[in-house]
């Protein structure tokens, strides 16, 4: 047989062999090897104890300015738990961490013992059974889960099972220039119906050119403008879980108002990759009276601004809820029980009362335990950051996010459609009708 023929036969064989291997498995295939057995069934605390020295990895997305806090917390844990050596690894943004976690899950190897996850991913991870169910651990070790708000627990659960613990929690808030507000007598709106007047009072528009925006609405992430819709009767995902009402009259009303403010220059709908940085700079430069952002960035604004920074609850409508942001901690299910036990020990420590206030004090994230907010430490916290009083006063109004495995796709489609109609001055109804068509297909496909 000639070399070329031999080569061709070999390649065909390889191809066919790999096709056969790939297609084996009948009607249900497997993508990787499953790890050791899943959730423990016994309730004994001994089952979840760490009995021999172990080294574990903790993947996080905590930015470098908080590295000293991370180092301190990890070091304190190690001194109290000499058996468990924790390596905290920064994996980039939430999106980067998600990509790596998902790749490790698909490969079945190199999974961390513990990982942070942005709250929107909980439903997808829950549906994919990526996370260890924590209920048996909580029951066996007597962990006080009731100390967390009901909304926080719900946002860390999927299908009635607790699959994560609330860790660094934030919510939407309006940061405003308090010096400007006091000097010009600008009243922060508490209702959506007051926004028009607020836009006129707080902005400075001269001959079509905006010298100062009343507010900047982040358009690069639907989480920021979502409460405006939810508080004014829009469901976003209908009760059938397969359709959206984003093209309803209620939703169009809100969307058209945002568009009107953007087009007349009283507010700015910030969209694009550099929109977040531009928004922060505009506020710090005094080119925006207020911005809608996350409470976790309070420290950044307060330290960088040359004026006093105030925080105000977002204006509501029929209701005035906000949504949980930030991140949760989860334990990948595929790890061995020894690794999961060590991860649980570290996870319990990170979410304990003592450490709760450390995160809140050193970062802009909020305390997550109800008991902590009544302690002396919390009182001290409010003395140093009195603006957080508005958040403490409204803790029971912080709701879990909408949990649907396809929500990230819905959010992307919604955000793009709203941005295009608002910024490019296109017909909002046509844009939202088209978005509804796409979103209904996305939701129905799950």
């Amino acid at each position, binding site marked *: 047989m000639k*070399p070329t023929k031999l080569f061709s036969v*070999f*390649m065909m064989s390889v191809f066919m062999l790999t096709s056969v291997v790939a297609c084996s498995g009948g009607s*249900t295939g*497997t993508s990787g090897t499953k790890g050791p057995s899943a959730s423990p069934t016994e309730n004994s605390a001994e089952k979840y104890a760490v009995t021999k020295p172990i080294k574990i990895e903790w993947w996080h997305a905590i930015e470098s300015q908080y590295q000293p806090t991370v180092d301190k917390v990890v070091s304190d844990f190690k001194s109290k738990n000499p058996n468990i050596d924790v390596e905290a690894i920064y994996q980039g943004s939430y999106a980067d961490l998600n990509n790596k976690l998902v790749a490790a*899950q698909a490969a079945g190897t190199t999974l961390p013992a513990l990982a942070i996850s942005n709250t929107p991913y909980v439903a997808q991870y829950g549906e994919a059974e990526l996370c260890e169910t924590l209920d048996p651990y909580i029951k066996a070790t007597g962990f006080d889960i009731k100390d967390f708000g009901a909304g926080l627990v719900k946002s860390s659960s999927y299908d009635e099972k607790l699959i994560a613990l609330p860790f660094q929690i934030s919510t939407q808030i309006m940061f405003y220039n308090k010096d400007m507000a006091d000097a010009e007598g600008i009243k922060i709106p508490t209702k959506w119906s007051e926004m028009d007047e607020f836009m006129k009072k707080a902005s400075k528009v001269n001959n079509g050119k905006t010298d100062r925006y009343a507010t900047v609405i982040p358009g690069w992430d639907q989480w920021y403008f979502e409460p405006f819709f939810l508080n004014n009767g829009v469901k976003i995902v209908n009760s059938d879980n397969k359709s959206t009402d984003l093209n309803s009259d209620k939703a169009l009303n809100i969307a058209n108002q945002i568009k009107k403010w953007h087009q007349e220059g009283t507010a700015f709908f910030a969209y*694009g990759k550099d929109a977040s940085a531009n928004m922060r700079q505009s506020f710090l430069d005094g080119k925006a009276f207020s911005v809608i952002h996350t409470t976790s960035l309070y420290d950044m604004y307060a330290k960088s601004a040359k004026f006093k920074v105030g925080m105000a609850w977002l204006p509501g409508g029929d209701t005035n809820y906000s949504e949980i942001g930030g991140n949760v901690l989860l334990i990948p299910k595929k790890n061995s029980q020894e690794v999961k036990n060590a991860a649980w020990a570290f996870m319990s420590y990170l979410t304990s009362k003592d450490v709760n206030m450390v995160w809140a004090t050193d970062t802009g994230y909020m305390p997550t335990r109800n008991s902590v907010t009544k302690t002396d430490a919390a009182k001290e916290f409010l003395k140093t950051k009195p603006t957080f009083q508005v958040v403490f006063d409204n803790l029971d109004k912080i709701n879990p996010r909408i949990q649907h495995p396809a929500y990230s*796709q819905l959010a992307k489609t919604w955000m*793009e459609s709203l941005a295009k109609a608002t910024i*490019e001055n296109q017909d909002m109804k046509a844009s939202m009708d088209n978005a509804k068509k796409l979103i209904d297909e996305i939701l129905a496909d799950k």
Partner: protein
Amino acid sequence: MEPVLENEKKIELKKSKISNIKVEEFKDFLTVLPALAFFGVFIYYPLAQLFNISFTNWNLIKDSYKYVGLKNYQWLYNGSGKAELINSLRVTFIYTLSEVTITLVGGMLLALLFGKMTRKYAFMRSIVFMPKYVGMSTAAVVYAWILNGKYGILNYVLNIFGIPSVDWLTQQSTALIGVLFLTSWRVVGYAMIIYLSAMQGISRDYYEAASLDGATKVQELRYITIPLLSPTTLFLFVTTFIASMKVFQSIDVMTGGGPYESTNVMVYWIYNLAFVDFRVDRAAVTSILFFIILLVCTILTMKVSDKSVNYDS
């Protein structure tokens, strides 16, 4: 008797020759086997798996999946994926053709400009080539700031000359141009160096003969330089074409596929389908189509080059 014996001897000799050839062929095959195994494991097996996944509903993080027949193909060719596919292909081809044009034309012009072998020109060549050493992600972060609509230095310079600011990366009409600024800046120096070395290989006799016949510099460029550089042009065309079709980093850092999917090139779209939407099944179908498109483009390029490339230098 003797002729029969001779025939038998000939047959035996022939058999022994054939068996020697077979042994040699087998030895040759053995030396190639490691490379073939590498290809099999890292290219052909993943390709087969990709094909397999395109018939499933796998979402990357679940351990199991179901076979759904041609559902994903229907989504791409008849469903909501079709509009996205058309947009993504359009953006990818516009980007690719623009970058190829800038690379070939810019590279050649720079090679002609800095062609003299003197120290000053060597310094200029190194300045032009230097961007190739800068990592793409790093350069993209810097360019994103240069092109920032509110605080970017490019707009600052434009304002000095009375030209109004442009939202380079947040306007549909300019976002792709902004990305092309970066990629052109990086690749045009490389094309210049390739063209320069090819130009050094063109015999001076052609130019002397042309000069004697009264040819102008433009005529020399058109009838001598460009035709004799056609193999180099083909090489740059193919490599730049393939690299541009697979652009990802600059898009990811600078625009995220936006605004409104105006820079949503194929690879970025496939990445989003797999890792953001968790639709690996749809990403697989799209990847297969993209692979076929790249293959067809490469074959067409080779066929055209057979007729128009001059290897006479």
